[in-house]
């Protein structure tokens, strides 16, 4: 009798688990790419304001994946790289030209680079034939500021080059996003996503060959690196929908 009861309970449990498993949203791993649009002071281009970050829109790529343990909720992670060219280098260069009152300034600028390592929660809302996914991720942002080199020339004399060196800092970062997923073939889906991202690294910036107090001089930068990522991608789903 006892063994029968054990078998019965075991069958019930297995069938429950099986039922839950059938209702689970498909786990996936995917690759996304798109454009990242910086916002706030980070994207402003006011030469006189050191809060202005001169960050322009840039490409971003990401690998993410999630394991869904229920119909709607899962855990996952995002690894994301994005790059932001220095925006309005002409304005930056003109600012230095005016500040030093020289015949010519040559400004060379690199890019901001961000790596995000963000685990967190994924949410899935089926709406046949698509599904809507949302995510709330938090983790580490590893960011690097661009190198800015300014060569000053006046009266056919090269007065040298001063540099705002690259600076790297890590900080807490998060990503809140929503997207739609459409299964094109069995186990393959395409995704369209929009994500808001935020981090606030404290950069300490080294400047070399700044002999005189003149022109824009940024020794530190502590402004939110925030913006919107718009991306398109493809995902491999591990279970049938």
């Amino acid at each position, binding site marked *: 009798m006892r063994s029968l009861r054990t078998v019965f309970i075991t069958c019930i449990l297995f069938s429950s688990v099986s039922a839950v498993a059938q209702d689970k949203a498909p786990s996936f791993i995917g690759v996304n790419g798109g454009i990242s649009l910086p916002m706030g002071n980070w994207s402003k281009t006011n030469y006189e304001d050191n809060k202005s970050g001169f960050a322009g829109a840039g490409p971003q790529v990401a690998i993410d994946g999630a394991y869904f343990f229920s119909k709607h909720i899962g855990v996952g992670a995002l690894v994301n790289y994005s*790059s932001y060219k220095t925006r309005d280098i002409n304005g*930056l260069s003109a600012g230095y030209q005016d500040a030093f009152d020289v015949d010519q300034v040559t400004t060379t600028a690199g890019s901001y680079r961000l790596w995000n390592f963000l685990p967190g929660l994924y949410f899935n809302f089926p709406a046949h034939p698509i599904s809507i996914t949302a995510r709330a991720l938090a983790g580490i942002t590893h960011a690097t500021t661009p190198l800015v080199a300014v060569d000053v020339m006046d*009266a056919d004399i090269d007065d*040298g080059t001063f540099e705002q060196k690259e600076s790297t800092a890590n900080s807490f970062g998060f990503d809140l996003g929503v997207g739609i997923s459409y299964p094109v073939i069995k186990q393959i889906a395409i995704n369209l996503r929009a994500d808001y991202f935020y981090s606030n690294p404290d950069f300490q910036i080294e400047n070399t060959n700044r*002999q*005189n107090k*003149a022109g824009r001089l940024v020794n530190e930068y502590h402004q939110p690196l925030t913006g919107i990522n718009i991306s398109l991608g493809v995902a491999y789903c591990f279970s049938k929908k």
Partner: protein
Amino acid sequence: MGLLIFSFAYSSCNKKEQVVTPAPPGNEFLTTVELKLQNSQDPTDTHTAIWRQLDPTEANPPDTSLAVLNLKPNSTYDGQVILLDETKTPADVVSDEIKERQNYHLFFFQPTPISPANLVISATTTNIPGTQTSSTGPYLNLVVTRTDVDANTPPLQVGLTDSFVTGTTSAGWLRVVLRHQPNVKDGTYPPGSSDLDVNFKVTIQ
């Protein structure tokens, strides 16, 4: 595939961009240099010497008829350099802009004739390297020192205000040079270029 996308994005997005920015046209001219001196012991003893070149092409010679200082011997004068652009109406006071941009401007004042012993070149003297010296004289007995400093760290002299100290009766020339030293100002003459280079006749009697 992901690695490929990452490596492509990383390599293509880490390139540097370069922009060359020339000075905008229509910069101001520096047409007029005034030296205003006041005897520190006798406020009524004032002098103004004016060097003027109103032709930006410099096809015509400058007007030096007023570029003369007649100073009393053994006196100390508080001096001020005023630069004007008289091609504009009213005249633009360029020395105000030099004051704003003092961190990379530096005046030099070179009395001649000068003895080799008095041609001291340092970060705080106003003498100009390479000035021809005379071992026999007679010399212009005038020493000019700057009295203002800029906002650099440590502060460097500027020369918009100065002290003119005369000795015994003598005569000669005072060469005034404004050096424009963008991000290379260190108190010495060589870095940068000259925004002006003019001469005043000086008589001490």
